[in-house]
């Protein structure tokens, strides 16, 4: 009969687990960052060369392009709705419809839009292909100049519900989901459509693009004139974070068709597949990631050839949260969204049926995204206990700490370099130095907070104490232009 495990043996196991587990985990994550960085740089450089040889204007007048509906949910956007719609209507694409979904705003969003664009309520046989909240009315402009615009007024149901309404109203082959307060580059859709048309036998079910930050940049008439490094620390730290995540991270994942997330701020989706997969899920705050995972799953289960594409170029610009409270709420939500999505699709984990998605992407997200803050927290606590017990190996501690730190700084510098080699949107050397300085201070000043917000997000998920989006306050582009 087996002897029961004594407390000493148990502690011994625990001790060994922490020692080796955390060590191997850290080495694995660092190596994965290295591989991702190298793969992405190659892909981005190649894309950049191809882009320079492509005349995207050729798409403009062609009858062969697929049709696109932009779906922009609006909630309490009374101040900016008129400018935002104008900006969307000015995008360069021939077969484009702009669908604004007023998600039961409590202010004058609808009235402002109706007055500015001469809208009138019209009959519309709304087919609820995806189940949604009730529609109050559908409006179109009396002015033929705005014939591309459809304005939907509905009861409040959240962002996912608003986009689902837009999908139901849309008749286009593709729909683009965007945040109404984003600035979209005028040629964005021309660039997003190219990978769809190039896909050949594979069906391109979704395409993402880089979202970058505009804080303190020069914006005129809803257009980005010059990109500048933000003046304050919090947005500046996020710039570097976005460069690493969008330029290096997602590019590499799309290369192996393992991209799990297309930003809710800007993405293009195959309408037929999205509808067949069930549209956006109301029951998660990570609805953007959840839809992409579900569309992947849908195609994999049907064994159809498909691709989730990515355009590694800044096509959408948004404003980053400028104070820690709002940023904390955002990161809390992202964490909860990630957990919900991973749990909803847990059958994918290490399931060969889902290919790269199940064998690489999912485990990576689980270990390097969801678990990372726990490893950092418990690793730190474990070390502190060891130190108090006199068991710490200080020479190794300082050496490993320095190694991880300088690796992180090198990776950030490499991200800045890749940005410069490819798009070079920061035109002054001063901006580059500012970003580099952020890379140096980030591990002490910014990163611990992101770890804390993630832990808090996990706690909120477990206790169910915070299920919503939380209020997101932005200064707004229009206001700044004044």
């Amino acid at each position, binding site marked *: 009969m087996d002897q029961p495990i004594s407390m000493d043996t148990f502690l011994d196991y625990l001790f060994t687990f922490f020692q080796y587990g955390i060590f191997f985990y850290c080495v694995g994550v660092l190596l994965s960052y290295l591989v991702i960085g190298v793969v992405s740089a190659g892909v981005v450089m190649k894309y950049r060369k191809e882009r320079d040889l492509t005349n995207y204007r050729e798409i403009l007048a062609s*009858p062969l392009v697929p049709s696109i509906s932009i779906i922009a949910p609006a909630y309490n956007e009374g101040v900016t709705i008129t400018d935002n719609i104008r900006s969307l209507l000015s995008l360069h694409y021939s077969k484009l419809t702009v669908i604004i979904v007023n998600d039961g705003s409590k202010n004058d969003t609808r009235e402002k839009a109706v007055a500015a664009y001469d809208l009138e309520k019209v*009959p519309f046989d709304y087919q609820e292909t995806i189940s949604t909240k009730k529609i109050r009315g559908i409006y179109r402009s009396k002015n033929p100049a705005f014939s591309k615009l459809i304005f939907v007024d509905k009861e409040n149901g959240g962002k996912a519900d608003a986009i689902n309404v837009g999908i139901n109203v849309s008749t286009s082959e593709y729909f683009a989901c965007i945040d109404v307060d984003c600035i979209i580059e005028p040629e964005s859709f021309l660039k997003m459509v190219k990978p769809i048309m190039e896909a050949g036998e594979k069906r391109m079910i979704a395409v993402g693009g880089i979202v970058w930050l505009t804080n303190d940049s020069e914006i005129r008439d809803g257009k980005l004139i010059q990109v500048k490094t933000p003046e304050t620390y919090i947005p500046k730290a996020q710039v570097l974070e976005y460069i690493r995540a969008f330029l290096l991270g997602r590019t590499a994942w799309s290369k192996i068709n393992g991209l799990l997330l297309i930003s809710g701020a800007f993405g293009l989706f195959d309408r037929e597949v999205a509808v067949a997969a069930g549209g956006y899920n109301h029951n998660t705050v990570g609805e953007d990631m959840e839809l992409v995972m579900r569309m992947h799953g849908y195609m994999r289960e049907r064994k159809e050839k498909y691709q989730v594409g990515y355009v590694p170029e800044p096509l959408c610009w948004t404003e980053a949260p400028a104070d820690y409270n709002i940023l904390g709420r955002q990161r809390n939500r992202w964490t909860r969204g990630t957990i919900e999505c991973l749990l909803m699709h847990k059958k994918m984990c290490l399931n060969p049926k889902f290919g790269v998605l199940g064998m690489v992407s999912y485990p990576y997200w689980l270990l390097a995204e969801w678990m990372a803050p726990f490893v950092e927290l418990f690793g730190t606590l474990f070390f502190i206990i060891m130190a108090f017990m006199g068991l710490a190996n*200080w020479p190794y501690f300082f050496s490993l700490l320095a190694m991880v730190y300088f690796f992180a700084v090198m990776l950030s510098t490499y991200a*800045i370099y890749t940005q410069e080699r490819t798009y070079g949107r920061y035109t002054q050397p001063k901006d580059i130095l500012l970003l580099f300085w952020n890379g140096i201070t980030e591990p002490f000043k910014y990163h611990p907070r992101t770890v804390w917000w993630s832990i808090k997000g996990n706690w909120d998920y477990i206790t169910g104490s915070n299920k919503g989006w939380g209020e997101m306050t932005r200064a707004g582009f229009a206001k700044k232009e004044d």
Partner: protein
Amino acid sequence: MVFLQNILTSNLPFSKESVIRGIKNEPQLVFIWCLIVFFIVATVVILLRTIYIRKKKNRDLAHTSKLNEKYHQFLSELASGDYTDKALELMSANKETTLALNKEDFTKEFNRKTLLKELLDLHSNLAGEAAHKLREVYLTLGYKEESLKKLKSFDWMLRVEGIQELKQMDIKDGYLPLFKLVKDRNHLVRLEAILARMKMDINPLSLFEDLEHDLNEWEQLRIHNLLHRIPSEEVPSFLPLIDHQLTSVQLFAIRMVALFNQAQAEKKLLEKLSFEYSKINQTIVESLSEIGSEESVKYLHKNFNESDSRLKTHIISTLMSIAGEADAAFFVSQLNPENYDIQLAAAKALVKLGSKGEELLDQQLELVSIETKNIIEHARQWTNQ
């Protein structure tokens, strides 16, 4: 494992001296510190390189802007006839000309590249004698040889540039090496070679005999754009390609037949059409709306009931385009089936018929269900959307 045990379990007291002594005495730690030094050096090198690139970009941008202005003025004046052939002679000898240019402009790589870019930009916007003069400049300055050399480059980007330059300047010496590139391993090179061959080859469709890769929709778009710019009588007949071994080329041919209104292909399309749903069948039905005749109407009617429901909606739209009012009764009959898309297509077809269709829809409003009424109202509002 010994290495890990050393890392993680050695019990050393914390003091500055013990840490430094520990690092010096442990070979594993020396290795870690080598890595740290490597990271620091790499960071500094990458940072300096980034700043250098940025500064160079800013400098080149300013220099290019100045050169562009100078070259644009020179080439515009040359193209408009302000300079004589003497100017070209001087240029060919790489001597300083009486013009605004000097030897550096013809010999320095950066200047030559900028001049070529400006030359190509201007040439693409001109025609006739002016374009011919710019072509002469291209030949005189030896750009032709450079473009031909680019075709053999290992760098796909240079091969693309070479093709684009030779295509634009219509250099006959480049035909043969360029035509072979439709089989190139790089997709962009292939596409540019296809476009060049479509433009330069006496028998442009012969390139499809050599084609080994599928023709994706982007490539189809680019070819269509090229064909769209030439007079319609010079556009080749795509009829022979409808039976091409590659499905993507078949699709392309069917689309082109419609876009260039090649009615002679109607019979072939009807032979090819079957009534289960496929991309090819859908494209054929859509194309018939452009080139179809009474024969197509009869054929579509005959097979309508056996057709896949997704095809039926396209058939209704096509019948509206070809038969028009003559099929009004048929469209009315399709308002009743229990398929929303077919009902909507029929209602839209009636709306498109104009007053006659509206009259029929008014009559139907009295007879149909509330759901169908909604469809009719919807079609009236959104048909031209």
